[in-house]
């Protein structure tokens, strides 16, 4: 007697399609996570990591020095030794006058000094 052979039936089309979609989604999600973590599978592991860019800040300082000439401290008559006659020290007449110009007068130049040379 011959048995009728029952044909085997595989999974249905829907099952296969769903499984493929799930597998695709799972792999895609894994790749997305990997990319987000910075481990791009397209780059080889031997590639040196990119150094962070160093930004040099150069500060340009423009210095302006304003030099003003102060009159030197000269020996006042009181500083002269007692042996120096006051008449010799204060021989210069003291003449006072009202300033004519409103502009500030330039600082006086240092007095000439006679000395041994």
């Amino acid at each position: 007697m011959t048995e009728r052979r029952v044909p085997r039936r595989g999974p249905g089309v829907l099952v296969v399609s769903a499984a493929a979609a799930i597998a695709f989604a799972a792999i895609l999600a894994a790749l997305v996570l990997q990319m987000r973590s910075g481990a791009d599978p397209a780059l080889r592991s031997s590639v040196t990591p990119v150094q962070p860019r160093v930004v040099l800040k150069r500060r340009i300082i423009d210095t302006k020095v304003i030099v003003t000439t102060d009159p030197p401290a000269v020996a006042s008559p009181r500083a002269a030794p007692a042996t120096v006659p006051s008449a010799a020290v204060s021989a210069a007449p003291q003449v006072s006058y009202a300033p004519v110009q409103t502009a500030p007068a330039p600082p006086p130049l240092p007095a000439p000094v006679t000395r041994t040379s």
Partner: protein
Amino acid sequence: MRSREYEVEFHCMGSDMRLLVGSPIDATLPSPEARACVVRGFLEHFDRRLSRFRHDSELCALNNDPRRVVPASVLLRGAVRAAVWSAEQTGGLVDPTLVPELERAGYTRSRDGVRPVPVAEAIAAAPARRPACPHPAARWREISVDEAAGTINRPPGVRIDSGGTGKGLAADMAAELLRGYSRFVVDCGGDIRVGGPGAEADPYRIEVEHPLTGRRVIALRLGTGAVATSGINVRIWRIRSGHIAHHLLDPATGEPAWTGLVGVTAIGATALGAETLAKAALLSGPKGARAWLSQLGGVLVHDSGRVESVGLRELSPPKLHVRLPEGMAA
């Protein structure tokens, strides 16, 4: 009000130089800056031609020339005439023929920039003080200048040193170049000549430096004329024997003079005159110095450090300009 003057400082003749030049009175004259540049060039030329320490100078050529009569430039003739004039005025105390004695004392090269021996140490070790005297041979009397022929006449072998009068003469010559400017100062290492109508009206204040302390001890007012200082505190050195020498020699002995004075400041009509007076006064000692300075005034610094003024007076009183207020009859 005194207008700002142009100021320049530089080093020349082994000393610090300073020029102050006011505005030109005549509009055709160059600016104070330009004229100061000319004066500086002249002073440097003066140094090159007349230095005893430059072997290529005209003065050295004269001193090495075996002829009795030697052609010389106007500048050298002027310097020799000035040196002889100083000797005449001082009876030979300021003697320009002491080159061999200076060299024997160790002054064979410029001492510019050489640290001097402390003068206090020298004073402590100095021999008895006494005034210097002229050299009896008076070699300087054998020197003459023939301006017509452009020559200098002196016995071969008599060497001339313009160092005693050089800076004063240079200041006077520079002052001639500044005629026509409102006011000026020519400071040749402390030998100072001032001038100009502005300075007569508003005199310069000139300070006298103490040779031992460096302090300014007296201030002078000078509208026109000159002031010069001579002292032993800068060109002073130790010789091999351990003794201390300086450049102001007693002509009679050829040795450094120890007279009881370490510095003298003299006032004169010219810087050459002031320098001559200062040297003669220092070499004469305190008593003689008072006589030298009695006419125009000056300052003595004794080797004790004491400062003594002699015959100082107001040299150039300022002119007072009085303007009456409106409505007031003259």
